[in-house]
């Protein structure tokens, strides 16, 4: 910059010492832009089409298998026709329900602590970080962990070990979801309730959670559905079983032995070279996809439509 600065008045004209500007070609910039846009359309179409194709395959191959017997009967003996996945469906429902009963309350209260008490303190920051790391742990590692913790010392696989593995996965998800949802509640609401002299715990349980209710329910349901579709944590915990869940502590019971579940059964059957087993596997996949997508849609319809207005 060669123009001297005179007094307080700054030079208002561009200095003549500056070289002339040489414009870039707009053609090239526009061409790149058009190329990227075109690529975006093609990529999006391909990506979404392939994903829809997956859903379509499951529906196409699975729909034919679904009948009343599919939900009520045991799987057939290898090589036979007929049968269903009734025991696996029941097992998945029980394992998932127990996992939810274990993880949701603890995760919820943990989230309450993070949002309402821990906040930016050292412990809370640490817990939050651990929870984030926890959510990134591969689910097969959780399976190995529960195997070493429960299955190996007790000398047998069991449904409850599967539930605990799933609960381990749900716990941080629920805690972080709760925290995020509570943080969305405006501080004024907290303050105005506290200013009325209501004790903190009543404010939290009565006012704040009610304000965050829809998000909390959605979070809890989706966390549950997500683990219901997990397979890896069950491989070495609940294992699988060709029988009905018929007792608590017996060798075919929830605490006593391997428990049938949908995901592991589907995984096993899909690898078998028998047509009927593969059909049942697709049927099971369809049931899970329908449950996952159905509950997702339901949650949206129930809670999010209201929020938009």
């Amino acid at each position, binding site marked *: 910059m060669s123009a001297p600065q005179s007094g307080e008045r700054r030079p208002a004209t561009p200095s003549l010492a500056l070289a002339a500007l040489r414009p870039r070609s707009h053609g090239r910039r526009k061409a790149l832009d058009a190329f990227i846009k075109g690529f975006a359309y093609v990529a999006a179409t391909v*990506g979404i089409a392939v994903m829809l194709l997956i859903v379509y395959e499951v529906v196409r191959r699975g729909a034919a298998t679904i009948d009343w017997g599919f939900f009520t009967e045991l799987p057939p003996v290898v090589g036979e026709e007929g049968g269903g996945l009734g025991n696996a469906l029941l097992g998945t429902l029980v394992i998932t329900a127990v996992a939810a009963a274990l993880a949701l309350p603890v995760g919820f209260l943990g989230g309450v602590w993070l949002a309402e008490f*821990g906040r930016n303190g050292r412990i809370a920051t640490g817990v939050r970080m*651990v929870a984030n790391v926890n959510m990134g742990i591969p689910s097969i590692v959780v399976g190995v962990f529960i195997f070493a913790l429960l299955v190996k010392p007790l000398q047998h696989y069991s449904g409850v070990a599967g539930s605990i593995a799933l609960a381990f996965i749900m716990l941080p998800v629920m805690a972080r979801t709760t925290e995020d949802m509570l943080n969305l509640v405006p501080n004024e609401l907290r303050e105005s309730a506290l200013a009325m002299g209501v004790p903190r715990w009543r404010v939290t349980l009565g006012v704040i959670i009610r304000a965050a209710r829809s998000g909390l329910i959605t979070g809890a349901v989706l966390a549950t559905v997500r683990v219901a579709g997990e397979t890896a944590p069950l491989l070495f915990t609940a294992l699988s079983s060709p029988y009905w869940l018929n007792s608590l502590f017996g060798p075919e019971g929830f605490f006593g032995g391997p428990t049938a579940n949908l995901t592991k059964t589907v995984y096993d059957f899909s690898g078998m070279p028998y047509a009927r087993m593969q059909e049942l596997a697709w049927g099971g996949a369809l049931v899970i996809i329908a449950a996952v997508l159905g509950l997702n849609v339901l949650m949206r319809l129930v809670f999010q439509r209201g929020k938009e207005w």
Partner: protein
Amino acid sequence: MSTVELDVRNQAGLPRGAAKAAPRTHRSFGDPAFRVITLICGLAVAIAMFTLAGVLIFNSWTAISELGVGFLTTVAWAPSNGRYGALAALAGTAMTTAVAMLIAVPLALVIALLLTELVPPGIARVVGTGIEMLAAIPSFIFGMWGLFVLVPFMQESVAPWVTESWLGQVPLIRPGATFQGGGFSILTAGLVLALMVLPYITAFSRDVLLMVPRVTKEAGYGMGSTTWEVLRRISLRYALSGIVGATFIGLGRALGETMAVAYLVGGDFLTVPKSLFDPGTTVASLIALQFNEATTALDVSALTALGLVLFVITMVFQVVAHVWLRRSQRTAGGRA
């Protein structure tokens, strides 16, 4: 509340209704109790992970002490011959994950760009919702689809066509000694992983791109930028930390995914794949396929050690992501 209490108050000459307004006495211990209960639940989240780490280390100890560093540097996993090498699995994990991320991240970004900038908001919302739902599909379904649809397709159409063309001479594509037709291969597994993480990274990227302030984007267009220039130079910088976060979580999922790859990757525990069309294995699928075959205590311990390795790898990525995000936030806008 008891009626006796009410009577007592009324005898004391208080007006009717005053009993209702009397201060609750349990308030003094209600709050601390609530605080402690929630604190315990909060700590449970942390304790759960430390237990996991402790149990894994304890149960891997036999393997770690007997096998030492060789565990990570030997190639083959053949417990019946007493060989416990994780290198083939580690290489396979790195390759499948790399394929998945190289495909998924750019695709996710352009789809997110499409949804935030190019298509009408109504359509964008429908497609966006659809993508969020696809992100919720359990991974084993991707694995099944891969097994029944993608593997035959790769085996019959893609692999012969590619390996017999001039591309077949390019390193990483030229089939190696273990080539089995290309259906069950690193590439197939990587493609399925890409599809699995794609909706996830897309949904997250779209969310963060939507948070870029409108006025900043307008200012970008107002400077005569094209849509792509606004995205690359302005929106992406704004959304960078979020997108990197989503990418790392997607990466963690791809690294640790078991069910989508176990059947597809070929199950070759013995060699480091030379080509994308070669079969291989990943750490997670090695654990899944070998665990129930394990007979000796050393077998189980070695597989647990593999779990520990996977845990440590995902931890490292999390920490790297964390540090990177910190740094990028500090120099927000530093010339990347």
